[in-house]
């Protein structure tokens, strides 16, 4: 009998290291990492890309991407990326930040990097909770959502309504591209990739600041199975965080 | 030889620039110099002053506890610094704006109607140069000619038309000090 011919039908992107990820079962960081890596591959920019890791569950993501990386202090990734990009304006610089990092401790840095129009791309993963520290309330936590620091559910009285970072940043005149996507079903994953590609292309074309907010899940800290978490996100998060392109420069296609 | 002088007046009277001009001129004569301004809230509105030290040796302290001379352009400055002048030193004061006389008897006092003279010259802004001219007459740490050379180097070309007024101001200040010198 002849040897069976093995054909490669799927493989990790070139820009990703072939190592196991440390993320919890059902976590969507893995999908998002892959989307970013595929885009880097497709644009052929791996050797000129420098990533900035933030503090949160994705703190170790410099181990997963096959690009140069700097690990940043909590919330400061946009400032670190600013420093890198200004030194190497010909390189592609992206940050990868969670909602605690970007929407809480790092609000000043993200707002001002966006205002200055730093030519960087921000991957903003919003799962409405602090994951790494095991499930505390985030500024993006939905009203009524129970977390370890909002055990009775987030209340408007005292904790306010969650922050819509993309809409807020879109009030600034300088940013070029801001979109919100989700990775909670295959169609949305596909559209998320298109947005990520557009954001990187915005930077490649030398246009100002681009950001993609990605609605994600955290089954472990939400106390759900992965499927329940997907359903919960689709039903509740998307109701508060509508998907779509919020700011698009006419020239970027 | 070390000369230390405090120059003081209202913000806007040109005391900092006068000190800078003095320091700059002395540097060009090969001296070691420091120019130390009072900075911060003191530079807003109220009294502004600087300390200039001119020395053949490297300058140790740029702060002067007993200055050899003070050049004071307003009354608060006289009240603040009169007591600090070292015995045998100099007080050069703007008698146009200071309606009291220094009481120290152990220093040489020169009253200069700087604003009146500047108005005669036709430019109130050169009152500080009148004061400097008087000071250099009693303590010639640099010459008036050297000051004029420095001034030509440091001010922008569009102000060079004012140089003759500055020169006149220095000279008139010196004449006032000469008269005092003869009378004392």
């Amino acid at each position, binding site marked *: 009998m002849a040897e069976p011919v093995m054909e490669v039908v799927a493989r990790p992107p070139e820009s990703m290291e072939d190592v196991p990820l440390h993320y919890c079962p059902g976590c969507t960081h893995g999908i998002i990492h892959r989307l970013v890596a595929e885009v880097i591959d497709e644009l052929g920019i791996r050797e000129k890309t420098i990533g900035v890791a933030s503090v949160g569950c994705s703190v170790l993501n410099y181990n997963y991407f096959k*690009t140069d990386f700097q*690990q940043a202090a909590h919330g*400061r990734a946009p400032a670190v990326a600013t420093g*890198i990009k*200004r*030194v190497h304006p010909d390189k592609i610089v992206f940050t990868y930040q969670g909602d605690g990092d970007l929407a809480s401790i790092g609000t000043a*840095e993200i707002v001002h990097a966006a205002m200055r129009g730093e030519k960087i791309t921000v991957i903003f993963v919003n799962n409405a909770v602090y994951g790494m520290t095991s499930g505390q309330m985030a500024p993006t936590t939905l009203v009524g959502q129970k977390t370890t620091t909002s055990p009775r559910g987030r209340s408007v009285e005292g904790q306010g309504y969650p922050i819509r970072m993309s809409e807020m940043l879109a009030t600034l005149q300088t940013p070029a591209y801001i979109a919100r996507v989700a990775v909670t079903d295959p169609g949305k994953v596909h559209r998320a990739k298109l947005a990520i590609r557009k954001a990187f292309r915005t930077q490649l074309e030398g246009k100002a600041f681009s950001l993609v907010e990605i609605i994600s899940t955290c089954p472990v800290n939400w106390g759900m199975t992965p499927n329940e978490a997907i359903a919960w996100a689709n039903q509740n998060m998307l109701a508060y965080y509508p998907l779509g392109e919020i700011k698009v420069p006419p020239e970027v296609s | 030889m070390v000369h230390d002088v405090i120059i003081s007046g209202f913000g806007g009277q040109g005391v900092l620039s006068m000190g800078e001009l003095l*320091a700059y001129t002395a540097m060009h004569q090969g001296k070691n110099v*420091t120019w130390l301004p009072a900075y911060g809230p003191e530079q807003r509105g109220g009294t502004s002053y600087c300390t200039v030290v001119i020395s053949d040796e490297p300058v140790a302290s740029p702060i002067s*506890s007993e200055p050899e001379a003070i050049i004071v352009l307003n009354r608060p400055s006289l009240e603040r610094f009169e007591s600090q002048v070292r015995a045998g030193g100099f007080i050069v004061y703007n008698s146009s704006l200071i309606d009291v006389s220094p009481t120290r008897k152990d220093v040489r006092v020169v009253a200069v109607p700087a604003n009146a003279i500047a108005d005669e010259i036709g430019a109130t802004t050169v009152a500080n140069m009148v004061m400097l001219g008087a000071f250099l007459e009693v303590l010639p740490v640099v010459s008036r000619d050297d000051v004029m050379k420095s001034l030509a180097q440091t001010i922008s070309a569009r102000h060079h038309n004012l140089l003759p007024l500055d020169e006149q101001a220095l000279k008139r200040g010196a004449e006032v000090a000469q008269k005092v010198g003869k009378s004392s």
Partner: protein
Amino acid sequence: MAERMLMKGNEALAEAAIRAGCRFYAGYPITPQSEVPEYMSRRMPEVGGVFIQAESEVATVNMLYGAGGAGARVMTSSSSPGISLMQEGISYMAGAEVPGVFVNMMRGGPGLGDISPSQGDYFQATKGGGHGDYRLIVLAPGSIQEMVELMQDAFDLADKYRNPVMVVGDGMLGQMMEPVTMPPMRDLSTLPAKPWATTGAAGRKKNIINSLELDPYVLEKHVQSLKAKFDQMQATEQRHDTYLIDDAEIVVVAYGTVSRVARSAIDAVRGEGIKAGLFRPITLWPWPEVALARVVESGRVKAFLVAEMSTGQMIEDVRLTVSGRVPVHFYGRYAGVVPTPKELAGVIQNLQAQLK
């Protein structure tokens, strides 16, 4: 010979940094050093460098972490409260081995304090400041010319050790003008190569700038290697200066602004026959213990007088070195008050009277 220029300390240090090859400056306005960002905003574009007015000192230090990690010679300047805000980032830079130069024009504190000269940040600069086990080389110029020269060394030392370097002064050194001679512009192509920098992983393995390591045994190895650098700094980078110390029975220990005042005071009391001299640390860390110990061991010194614009910080290092062999006295003015030459001379005279 290069031209002698009359320059403000803040502007001189900014120009000196550019001549040392600094091409990235980020900062936030704060008195008494705002002339530095103002100067940099004019000058950096002329040399193809980057000036950014950051949104805060917190952002500033992280911009330095990014730009320094990307391989540029980077610096910022601030004053005490702003330097406090940068401490987290300085710790990250030390941990991730990112070179950078920090200038602290110290002002009176604690809290918002005032804007007048102070040396109240000695502990912060030399004993940590930020979290974790690290050291900074801390340089303390006594004149504007020395500040210009130390800026050159600061960038070289930062690159040599891949560690932040701090230059400390105060409003007096920053606002004062003195004649300076500038060194020539450094040719950037002669600066040390930085194969570790994030420049894009083209044809090489990826570079990672990072201070995180969750395995304590691995992190301990990393910190051991940092310690080896700090040990080497201590062995090779101690610097000091002396004035009239050879026959001195009273040795004033002072740095920066106070050392200038002390020189005048020493000149004054020498005129009365008091054998006073000056020991001036130039590196506050590494502490110049070898040279100071030699002064102690000479046996001539009857008393040390530590003069600081603080309530007593450097005195701890003096005492450690002197180790009880000679009395160590203290004179401090603080919260923005600068001692005068006459005042300090009086302190030395009193001390002399006690010795008799």
